């Protein structure tokens, strides 16, 4: 990552929710950067404010205090240069796979012809060649999430935000998609912020893991993952991997609620 520019810079971020019983502090003193082409994972238990953080980064929620900058410009609302992949695929059943991938193109009125070629290329990268004219309900859950990843990348975003994208899938499919995501990332070197509650998934995928503890959500440690790529699934048995997982797990042992 030598000499690369910051894509995301978060400083002193705080988020409070107003409820009838007073305000609830969801996020406090959040600070981190993501560099160009870097794969950063945020790991934390359910309810630690991960999704709130992602919504602020996507411009869907305003921050109470602090600043969030994308390429040195403050994020104040939804932007056209961020791709988001949610926990569920969130596909439109009345659109074909290809048209689902092209949704950002239609919304942002980009050129459909050049984007179409790009969409077919992306679908080929995620292994869905020949499925472009199918409908989402004809595909399995894992395939649907691949469509969502293609859609997240179609408008060439500066950054891809992924909110527990494989959390709803079974363990086997999830491992397969982790491998795929690594392959896609090695091919394209997108800047990715990946949110998960699985420590193993975070360590497997990321260059750097941000550990997030709940109530209020705080980032307690930045853990670099210096394991060489491409990483195979059995990297789990490498002592270095186990060491990093243990180090992250130590933050949650008192609280529990996080997958190994």
């Amino acid at each position: 990552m030598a000499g690369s520019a910051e894509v995301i810079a978060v400083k002193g971020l705080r988020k409070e929710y107003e409820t009838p019983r007073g305000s609830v502090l969801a996020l406090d003193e959040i600070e981190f950067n993501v560099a160009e082409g870097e794969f950063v994972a945020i790991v934390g238990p359910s309810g630690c404010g991960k999704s709130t953080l992602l919504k602020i980064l996507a411009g869907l929620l305003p921050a109470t205090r602090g600043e969030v900058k994308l390429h040195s410009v403050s994020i104040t609302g939804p932007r056209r240069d961020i791709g988001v992949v949610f926990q569920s695929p969130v596909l439109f059943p009345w659109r074909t796979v290809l048209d689902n991938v092209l949704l950002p193109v239609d919304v942002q009125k980009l050129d459909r012809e050049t984007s179409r070629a790009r969409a077919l290329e992306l679908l080929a990268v995620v292994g869905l060649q020949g499925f472009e004219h199918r409908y989402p309900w004809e595909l399995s859950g894992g395939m649907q999430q691949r469509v969502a990843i293609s859609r997240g990348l179609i408008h060439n975003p500066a950054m891809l935000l992924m909110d527990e994208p494989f959390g709803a899938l079974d363990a086997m499919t999830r491992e397969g998609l982790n491998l795929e995501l690594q392959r896609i990332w090695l091919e394209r070197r997108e800047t990715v912020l990946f949110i998960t509650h699985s420590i193993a998934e975070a360590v497997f995928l990321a260059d750097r893991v941000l550990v997030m503890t709940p109530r209020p959500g705080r980032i307690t440690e930045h853990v670099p993952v210096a394991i060489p790529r491409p990483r195979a699934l059995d990297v789990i048995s490498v002592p270095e991997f186990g060491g990093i997982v243990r180090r992250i797990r130590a933050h949650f042992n008192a609280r529990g609620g996080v997958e190994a």
Partner: protein
Amino acid sequence: MKGLRNPALRLALLLASLALWEGAVRLLRIPAFILPAPSQVGAALYRGAVSGIYLQHLWITLAETLLGFALGSAVAFVIGTALAASRAVEYFLYPYIVMFQSMPKVALAPLVVVWFGLGLTSKVVSAALIAFFPLLVNTVVGLRSADEDRVDLMRSLAANQMQIFWMLRLPSALPFIMAGLEVAMVFSLVGAIVAEFVGAEAGLGMLIQSRNFSMDVAGEFAVLLILAVMGLALNAVLVSIRRRVLFWDPSQKAESNAASIKGGL
């Protein structure tokens, strides 16, 4: 159910019940002005068909129903969209809607005939009034049914409200709107017939009433049969449109829940 499908048996059952009806009427000497035998109904049907009288009245009732359906549905869709889009519109309009909805709309038919005369207009207005509510309610509920994650996705792409409406809310509402349209069609026919009862120069409802006055009960049955077929045909058109438009909706495999509401009037 599969093993029970037998068209021949079905037809035989129909013929048997007609024969039973015929036999009962003859054997018990029930007068034709109380309950005509199927053969008499058939004869009345044939006479009217040959003279062209049914076709002439059928076109009128069909036009009233379709125009009323189009008018009522269009207004319901526009108002429903405004209600779903704006809490302010909902706040100010809702009390009137609730009041109007709890009123039996057929009771308005005499007034409508006084206001709009004995011709086509009063029948169209009456049909539209009755067709209005099922679609209004379904449009509001449908437009609000859009999945929140999908709305977030659209917003994250910097979509504006118009884009969210056309690309997401409207397609999400279509299953509800199609179900509402099916009910509205049946209700339109009811509205047209009721207005014809109150006062009309032509139409199948008027024909039923004039035959009732002249105690031509067999002829009345014949018209009822035509109305039933007409209702079925109108519904079949909408069902085939729905199947085409909602090919992506998983609930289409099961029958739409519209069927249960339709029996209401």
